């Protein structure tokens, strides 16, 4: 026997269910511009009529109305993992590109004010001196052009060293960020577990956690594994950075001597195996790319110093001085024109004989140096080697730019795929709004209709003859 109030109950359940649905719609519309939000969906189910063994023979089964069984997020965890992987690769190349871009800006090898042009002027100055070996003016001009070379080399070496310092700073701050995110994820894990135990789905907490994971993945490549009770465990390489409600810190203390930050796990001191992400890019730039150019500049400076001094020190200046080095220093950071020569340009030795102002043997030997394969294991001239630094840097940067554009196309594509699933379409929400509104109105009308039925029963029944 079904209660006379059953219809009212059904209508009430509908009112409640559609109100919940409207609330969820409100949340969706409110978050339509929130990039970290996943669209939520209300799952409805009809309330099944109560059955029991005693009433198994009931002829008509009428359900108990409607109920909300769950509010779920639209999310594709496979797409998430894919996007995070590509995002961390994008991070790698973005860091490299940024660093190399700065280095190229400083080096400006292609500019007319760059070191290759300065080198051209330097050789020309030796030619001019060979043409007029008695001239002090030509010596002064030579010393000036040499000074330009040494200044450019010093500046480039200095800027590259600065770049490495900057990279170390960035590594430090990114690692701090990683540690913060890891502890936030661990906190969220704890909250999510609690809500899950109570049987609810903490959609918005999970969104927050996913957003943090996205940021973490762009910093460093991570592997995400299910940790039970809606928790996740996060790994870098084979070691966990988040396990349930615990997070593990990465240590990035700078080396006292070099200032280089080495990444180790704070709990056991083992190295952190970072294979992608911004940190990987920063490490690559610091350990591979920038040192390569530093090395090349140093090689160039050292060879230039050695070769030039070997010729210069055995020659004679206008004042019959001999044994003077042309360059002082040993590498790109400390190369300089010998101060004896900057103070007294007449000591520049163009002659191989004492008291022979017309002799230009040493100047000619310098000119010959230009055509000589002195660099890169006697396979390249000074000019070629210098050019190769500019071109290497340019090629590396070009490659990283290509990788960045490739990766960002890929991530944009994946993001749009993800956005198709998680994103809010306002038209869709509005359509549902109209739909739920109508259903709510209809249910409300049902209450009125049921009320009229009951009114008939209660107030008008059995009043014959009154």
């Amino acid at each position, binding site marked *: 026997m079904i209660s006379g109030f059953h219809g009212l109950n059904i209508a009430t359940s509908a009112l409640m269910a559609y109100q919940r649905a409207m609330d969820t719609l409100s949340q969706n519309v409110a978050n*339509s511009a929130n990039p970290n939000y996943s669209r939520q969906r209300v799952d409805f189910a009809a309330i099944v009529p109560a059955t029991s063994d005693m009433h198994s023979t009931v002829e008509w089964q009428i359900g108990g109305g409607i109920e909300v069984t769950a509010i779920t997020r639209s999310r594709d965890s496979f797409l998430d993992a894919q996007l995070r992987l590509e995002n961390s690769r994008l991070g790698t190349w973005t860091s490299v590109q940024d660093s190399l871009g700065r280095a190229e800006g400083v080096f400006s090898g292609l500019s007319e004010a760059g070191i290759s042009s300065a080198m051209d002027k330097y050789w020309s100055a030796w030619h001019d001196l060979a043409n007029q070996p008695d001239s002090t003016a030509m010596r002064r001009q030579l010393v000036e052009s040499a000074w330009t070379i040494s200044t450019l080399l010093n500046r480039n070496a200095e800027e590259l060293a600065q770049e490495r310092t900057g990279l170390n700073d960035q590594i430090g701050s990114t690692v701090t960020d990683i540690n913060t995110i890891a502890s936030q994820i661990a906190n969220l894990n704890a909250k999510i577990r609690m809500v899950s135990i109570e049987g609810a789905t903490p959609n918005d907490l999970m969104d927050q956690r996913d957003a943090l994971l996205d940021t973490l993945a762009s910093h460093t490549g991570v592997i995400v594994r299910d940790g039970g009770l809606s928790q996740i465990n996060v790994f870098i390489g084979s070691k966990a950075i988040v396990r349930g409600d615990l997070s593990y810190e990465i240590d990035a203390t700078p080396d006292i001597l070099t200032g280089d930050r080495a990444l180790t796990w704070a709990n056991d001191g083992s190295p952190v195996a970072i294979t992608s992400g911004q940190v990987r890019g920063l490490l690559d730039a610091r350990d591979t790319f920038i040192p390569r150019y530093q090395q090349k500049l140093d090689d160039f400076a050292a060879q230039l110093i050695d070769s030039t001094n070997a010729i210069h020190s055995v020659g004679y200046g206008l004042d019959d001085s001999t044994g003077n080095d042309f360059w002082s220093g040993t590498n790109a950071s400390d190369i300089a024109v010998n101060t004896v020569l900057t103070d007294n340009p007449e000591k520049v030795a163009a002659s191989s004989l004492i008291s022979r102002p*017309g002799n230009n043997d040493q100047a*000619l030997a310098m000119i010959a140096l230009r055509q000589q394969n002195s660099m890169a294991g006697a396979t390249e001239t000074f000019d070629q080697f210098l050019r190769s630094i500019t071109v290497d840097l340019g*090629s590396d940067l070009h490659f990283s730019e290509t990788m960045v554009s490739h990766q960002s196309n890929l991530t944009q594509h994946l993001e749009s795929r993800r956005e198709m699933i998680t994103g809010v*379409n306002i038209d869709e929400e509005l359509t549902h709004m109209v739909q739920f509104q109508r259903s709510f109105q209809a249910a409300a009308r049902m209450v009125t209709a049921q009320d009229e039925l009951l009114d008939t029963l209660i107030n008008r029944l059995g009043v014959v003859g009154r």
Partner: protein
Amino acid sequence: MRVSHRFMYDSVINNIMFNATRLAEANQVISSGKQIVNASQDPAKASVILSLRTRLSEIEQYSKNIAESSSWLSETENAIASKNDVLQRVRVLTVQGLNDTNSQPDRNAIATEIEQLLGGMVAVSNRQLAGKFLFAGQNFLATPFTGTPVTYNGDTGTMMREIAPGVQLDIGTNGETAFNVAGASIASDPDTFTMLQEIVDALRASDGTALNEGLARIDRAIDQSLDIQTMIGSKLSIIDRAKADLDETNIRVVALLSNAEDADLAKAITDSSMRQASYEASLGVGARMIQTSLLDFLR
């Protein structure tokens, strides 16, 4: 396909940014006049540009070397020609002095003129270019021929100049060779100044044998001067050839460099206006896309 509104807005922004970047790139090419500004834009081209620029600076320098060498050689040639003129005049006078119709006073007068010519010869031997003595070898700051009798203070050093990569040319003519000091050119004869002095002495002494010997010496000296002139002439023609080579290479390298480096303006401007159109299109489409919504139609 489901499209979220955020995705629509994002793609509008992405497309506008993409087109704006490409437009800015095209405009940079126009305003800088260069195809590439940084090596990373085209590393292979950057390498070409750098090596062409070095080549161009070399060409410039070698042109300068050649010009300087050329003026030194011409100046030397002039001096040798002057020397020859003096010798020719002395020859005429000597022949005249040998004539028996001349009296002793006549010979003395001829001797005086040759003495003056001797002074002129010293002046020729001490000619300078830009403060440097032409016939002093590598000791070209000190006056090479001084005193009576004239002594040589220069040396026999060369004046090597590089006129092409690895190609050196000796543009110097040292005083020993030019004026036969210590028999450097003609072993049997004394130096030019002594030779002239001996002719003067012979005229004053009316020594016919010595005068005849002097005449023979002058002829040999003239021949030798012509040799020097020929040598300088051949060096000048070597230099001219090198110069012609350089000029030709210069034209080629300038063209190559311009090809590699300079912007093709016609193309750049076409690119720019095409990209301007795409940019405006993306703005227009974006503006229309983000305006419409179901909200416009619900009442």
